[in-house]
Each structure stands twice: as C-alpha cells, then as structure tokens.
C-alpha cells in the first residue's frame, strides 16, 4: 500500500507474542496495531490543497472576528469615531461609514454574528434533516408521515412564515435572552427550521438504498440493534451528501440572515452583521465601492473556504478515495 510509508512506526510486535493458533508463516512478519482512523483522515485531508487553503482562511476569519476586537479596540457602535465617509487610511484601515463608525470594527463585530448564525443554523438544519431523513428511510412506517411533513415545509411560503414567527415570538425571546441574544436564537431557529428539507430528502434516499445492502443484513444477522445499525452502518455511509448539505447550508444561512436583516426582520438596525453592512453600503456603491467589497468579500471567501473544507473532508472520510 502506498500510504504505509508515511504512517508513524508503531512498536513492532512479532507473532511469537501472540496467542497460539498463529500460522507459522507469521513468525518473521511484523504487523501494526490498528491506529486511530482520524490520522488517516488527516493524512488524506492534507493532500487536498483547496481544503488546506480553505481551512487556513476559515481559521483566519475566526481569529479576525474573535481576537480582532481585542486588538482593534474601537467600539463598532460608536458614531463619529472618525470623520464621516472616510476613505481607508492608517487610522481607519477599512474607512468609516456615513455616521463615522469604524468599518473594520464593524466588520469584526458583524463577522462574529454572521459566522455564529451560519454555523449554528447549519448545524441545526443538518441535525433536523439527518434525523428526519434517517428515521424516514429506516423505519418504513414513519416514512410516509415524515416525508409528507417535509413536503409541507417545502411548500410553505418562507417569507410570510418568517414574518409570523418573528411577530409572535420576538418580544418573548427578547425579554428572556436580551435584545441580541433573543434575536440570535430566533434567527437561528427560523433559518434552521426552514432549510432542513433538502438534507432530509437526500439522506432518506441514500438510507433507503444502503438499508438493502448486504452488510446491513449481515449486521442484522449479528443481532445489532437499530440504533447502533444507524450510527455504525448507515450514518457513515451517508456522510457525503450530509457534508455537501453542510457546506451549502452555511452559505445559505449567512445569506438568509442578511436578507432578513435587510427586511428589518433580523437584528436591530444599528447592530452590525456582514449582511447588514453589505446592504447598508449599497446606497454608497458609487462613491465608496470598498464598503460593499469588504463584507461581500468576507461572505464569499468564508463560504468558499467552508465549501473547500467540506469537499476535502468528504474525500478524506471516504476510505475508497483515501490514499490516492
């Protein structure tokens, strides 16, 4: 095998130390103990250049929005922190907006929210979609009801639904978790609960196919109960479509959040997110195009980075592709 060379040398054991019954041929051969599979996954991931660049940029983006505000201590909400509508300069590397707020500080603060919303909403959508897809595919009795539920969600008009949800729950959540926290929870749940359907359909289809494969029958002949059948045999084999949904989901969530903010249904108007910054800057597109470019670039690059990471991870998780 080609991937043997770069494996760390485990302590070599000889067959002499093994229980009786070892074939005599084994006596001069050595063998390695099974090593943790995640090392193989990492070895393969490293060979995917795009995925490494993606991972690098994603780490950079995370550091930019988390460590950044500790270094760049200007308050993003503070008006007249500098001259209004300033061009990029050393005092304000990304310029200032029409109220004189520092754009770089706002990018950092907005990035925290955008990345958090994207990740959490994606995880929620992925969890719901995978759960419903696996249950519908594996348990025949639940297939009909769950898939009709999925159809129902797909058929629902999204914007009126969001309007109603936000109107009904905004005040309670604000009271319970504070204005930003409440809206964050609301947005994440709203985005997560309205974007799981594609994942559910794809996962169900794959589960239906894998369920009929002989290795599932073999597991049944061993007496594997359903929950371990799902976690051990089905989920690892539907990893690829889940990964693809996950990477697309982050992008979708960031963009939906911007759309909601634009419609005034998301975070308060003075509260920065990347989507909000983008939409605020469109008014100044002629005079200050860089204000559109900053958030637009961060959104696209983050989405691209996540897509590449997902692509690399999907390849690395498939043992048939690994080692090529």
């Amino acid at each position, binding site marked *: 095998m080609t991937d043997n060379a770069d494996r760390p040398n485990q302590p070599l054991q000889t067959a002499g130390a*093994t229980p009786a019954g070892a*074939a005599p041929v084994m006596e001069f*051969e050595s*063998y390695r103990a099974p090593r943790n599979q995640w090392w193989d996954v990492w070895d393969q991931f490293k060979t995917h250049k795009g995925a490494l660049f993606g991972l690098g940029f994603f780490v950079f983006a995370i550091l930019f929005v988390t460590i950044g505000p500790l270094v760049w201590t200007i308050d993003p909400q503070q008006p007249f922190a500098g001259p209004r509508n300033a061009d990029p300069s050393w005092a304000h590397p990304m310029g200032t907006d029409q109220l004189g707020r520092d754009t770089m500080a706002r990018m950092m603060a907005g990035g925290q929210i955008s990345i958090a919303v994207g990740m959490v909403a994606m995880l929620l959508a992925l969890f719901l979609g995978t759960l419903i897809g696996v249950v519908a595919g594996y348990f025949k009795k639940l297939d009909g009801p769950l898939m009709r539920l999925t159809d129902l969600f797909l058929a629902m008009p999204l914007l009126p639904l969001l309007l109603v949800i936000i109107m009904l729950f905004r005040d309670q959540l604000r009271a319970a978790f504070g204005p930003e926290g409440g809206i964050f929870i609301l947005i994440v749940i709203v985005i997560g609960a309205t974007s799981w359907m594609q994942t559910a359909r794809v996962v169900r289809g794959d589960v239906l196919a894998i369920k009929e494969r002989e*290795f599932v029958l*073999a*597991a*049944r002949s061993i007496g594997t109960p359903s929950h371990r059948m799902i976690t051990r045999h089905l989920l690892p084999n539907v990893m690829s479509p889940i990964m693809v949904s996950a990477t697309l989901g982050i992008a979708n969530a960031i963009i939906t959040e911007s759309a909601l903010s634009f419609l005034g249904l998301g975070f308060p108007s003075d509260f920065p997110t990347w989507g909000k910054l983008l939409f605020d800057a469109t008014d100044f597109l002629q005079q200050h195009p860089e204000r559109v470019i900053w958030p637009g670039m961060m959104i696209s690059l983050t989405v691209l980075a996540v897509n590449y990471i997902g692509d690399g991870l999907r390849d690395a998780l498939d043992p048939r592709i690994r080692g090529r």
Partner: protein
Amino acid sequence: MFDTSNAKKLVEVRDLKMHFPIRSGLLRRVTGAVKAVDGVSFDIFEGETLGLVGESGCGKSTCGRAVLRLYEPTGGSIKLDGEEIAHAPFDKLRRLRPKMQMVFQDPQASLNPRMTVAGIIGEPLSEHSDMTAQARLDRIYELMDAVGLNRDFANRYPHEFSGGQRQRIGIARALALNPKFIVCDEPIAALDVSIQAQVVNLLEDLQGKLGLTYLFISHDLSMVRHIADRVAVMYLGKVAELAPRDGLYDEPLHPYTQALLSAVPEPDPTLHDEANRIILQGDVPSPANPPEGCNFCTRCPKVMDICRRIDPEFREVKPGRFVACHLYAEDTNQTAANAAEPIGA
C-alpha cells in the same frame, strides 16, 4: 460419509413458509403473495453439511435467510438446539444470534466499505461480549490467522482486497462468536474457480477444527457434491428431494433431480455427445401463482394425471431418502382414487 444414525439434530425446520405480499392498486392492498418458500421441512444434524441446491429463483437464499430469521417467516417452526427461532421475541433472538451466523454471497456488498477489517471482524465481539479493546484485538488477530489473512491487513478497508480475501473476512466475522451453525449463502458464486477451491477448503478445514454445522446453499452441483454430506434439492419454494450425497448423485429419484443432474456439463466430448440428457421444456412457473398439484407438473417428463391435482407428500421412501413425488407413493393408484373421489363428488 457422515453417519446420521446416532447424531443429534441441531436444526429442525418444519413447514417453513416465507411469502412476500404483492401489493397493487391505488390503496396498495395485498392482492397476492410470492410464495418464495412454501412449506419446507428438513433437519440438520450436528457437524454435518447440508447442501441446498436448485436453480435461480427457487427460494434457496430466502430459505437460508428465513432459517436465521433475517426475514419474518410467514409460518412454520425453526428450532436451533431445541430453541424456537421463528417466533422468538427480539431479546431472545439476540441472545441466540451468536449460535448461528451467515456467510454471504457477495463479499463486496456484505462488508461495510467505511469500516476497517478489524472493525468488521470485531463488530460481533463488541455486540455480544464485554471484552476489553486489547482482548478483542487479540481475538481479531486469532480469527485472521484462522482464515489465513495477514495480521497487517487489520487496518485496511474492504475495497483494498481481492474477492477471495474479502470472503475470508466475511468468514472470520461469522466465526467470531464461536457459532455452532453457519448458513453459507452461495459463498463461492462470486469468486473465480481457483479461489472457489481455496474458500471451500477453508470452510472444510474450519468445520473439522471447530465442529461447525453448515447449511451450504449453492447452484454449483459439483461443489455441493464435494462439500455436502446430505443434499436437498429445491424447486419453486419446495424441497423436491432430500438424500445423502452419494445416493442422490448416483441414483436421483425425483424427476427434477434427474433433470438437474443431467444438465451438469460433461467434460469428456465423447461422453458429452452420448449423454442422454433430459431437457426440460418450458419455464419455471411464477411463484406468485404456482400450478395446482405438484409444483413440477408443468415440466415433468413423467407427469401423471394425479400430479396435476394433488400436491405430493414429502416422505421417506428409503431410509434417509425423502422425496416429494407421486412416482414413489406406496399405492399411487389408491391415493389417486381417493383423491379423485371428492373432486368427482
């Protein structure tokens, strides 16, 4: 030759039925059933190999899977070591699983492509024992030695192996829990001839060492002749004939067995030309709509009147030889007369 006179019955199958419903129409109502296995009875003695042969689609694999209760049987009883399997609840069945295992036909499809060899062989161990990781690994290595796999392969994935090696992994998995009874569902059908011999010899060696009992399902008559002690011939969901190997191959009783054996290719060209082959006419009837009377009556060269009316009883005509055919009824004419009466009246 295996001596059945004083051996213990390990598996007793009585009147096993496996019908798959046919649904049709707007409401998906059950409108019929595919009678894949329709009233099969046989015993398997401890330590023997029972060959199960028949053409494609006659219900061999379904029968093997139903015996391990991988399907829910429609009717009948299956006893392993005196314990009922056919209607056992899930917990009891799970407790019985270690005693009975299966080797599958397609070694590619029967191994999870995302698990390493160690994971695949270790799965039954982690399901049914509370071994430590190290003890499990030792057992996995022991099993890999037993089936002739290099221990270095433990980290690898199924797609990295040849067909014969994959089948060895499947056999090691089946052996992991020290089963008594193994259903081999055409374990050699997907392998090329030289590898077939290796795998069959491995199965025979393991039987000798571990005292295993096999139900060996195959359509390869010469391979069954090699490995089996007794042979059951299936046709359209029913056992046509069950006999010790030598008796069956030397002097087949059932007309279907005779036709099946005469279809085996003869390597000698002179003998081939002279061979008096029985060529069956027509196709196998649909198992959803089997003919009235004997299932074989539509193609049987020795068909009689009675065959089209009455299903022949599966009975012992000579010691150890069971046949379901009216030709061997003790009093064919009388049975025919008795049967004819109610129809006439």
